[in-house]
């Protein structure tokens, strides 16, 4: 019985972890499917300012609901995606965008991984070059004799 219970709680926990979270429950009526699609894309792409690591569509926070309503109204008003993202960025900063724009402040964010990758490749390449240099050079007969003597004396 206990085992069954454990198994049950394990699976509920498992499903709670793997099922996609979708907290948005409002029903919005759109004029056409493309508006619906734009709404879904925008609320997936914009981050909830309160919860830091979830987007607007995945957040239960009141502010996320307000911002979803704002996106909905602006779409119906005929504003473009760029205008809506600009509206959000002006108020909440680049932070709100999961795809931050490229500028001096976000340079490291965009190119940091690439620079690290190149640095890693460079290091590996230099190491390979060094190890080639370290391959044993030919010993003269006298040197080989000396080496054998040393090795023999250690035994």
């Amino acid at each position, binding site marked *: 019985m206990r085992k069954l219970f454990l198994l049950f709680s394990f699976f509920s926990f498992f499903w709670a972890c793997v099922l996609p979270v979708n907290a948005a429950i409002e029903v919005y009526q759109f004029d056409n499917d493309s508006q619906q699609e734009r709404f879904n894309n925008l609320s997936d792409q914009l981050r909830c*300012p*309160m919860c*830091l690591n979830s987007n607007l569509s995945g957040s239960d*926070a*009141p*502010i996320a609901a*307000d*911002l979803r309503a*704002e996106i909905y109204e602006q779409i119906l008003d005929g504003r473009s995606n760029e205008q809506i993202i600009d509206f959000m*960025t*002006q*108020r*909440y*900063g*680049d*932070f709100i965008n999961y795809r931050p724009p490229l500028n001096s402040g976000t340079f490291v964010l965009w190119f940091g991984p690439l620079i690290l990758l190149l640095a890693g490749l460079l*290091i590996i390449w*230099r*190491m390979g070059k*060094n190890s080639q240099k370290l391959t044993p050079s030919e010993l003269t007969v006298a040197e080989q004799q000396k080496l054998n003597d040393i090795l023999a004396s250690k035994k």
Partner: protein
Amino acid sequence: MNKRALFIIPGLLFISMLGLLLFGLGRDPNMVPSALVNRPLPEFSLPGLELDAAESIALITPEDLTGGISIINFWATWCPPCHIEHPYLVEISESEQGLSFIGVNYKDDLNEARLFLEEKGSPFKKIIVDLDGSLGIDFGVAGAPETFIVDSFGMIRYRHVGVINHQIWEETFEPVISSIQ
């Protein structure tokens, strides 16, 4: 590149990680930089909350907030941290007569808000009613309480997220206020 340089690289990486962690761990991840700092107040025209009258006639606009340093506090009765900071706001608004404390009653029940202020005292010179939270969105507010320092030209100079207490007032608000006076 010689062999020694290869040993220096992990060392450098370690030191930079250490630096990053020392710098990063001390920072509050909830402190989202505000896009509105050093920008003018957003346009708005909203009713005020009157404690003695049932309905307010006059609308409050950004022009009503210029001419002195304002402290704009977003609050609501449904927000527990707002209850926590309220006594301190009353206290500091009494001792800092030069500042005008403006409340924004954020997505609240107006009767509850009136009762709350009648019971516990109001630190605010004016209270703006933001029923649907649209002024909050224009201020980039994520939740209550949030507090903004606005200079005498109507420029937003600082955003504080969360409760204000004596320590926060002394350490963050006072330096900003004295720098814009």
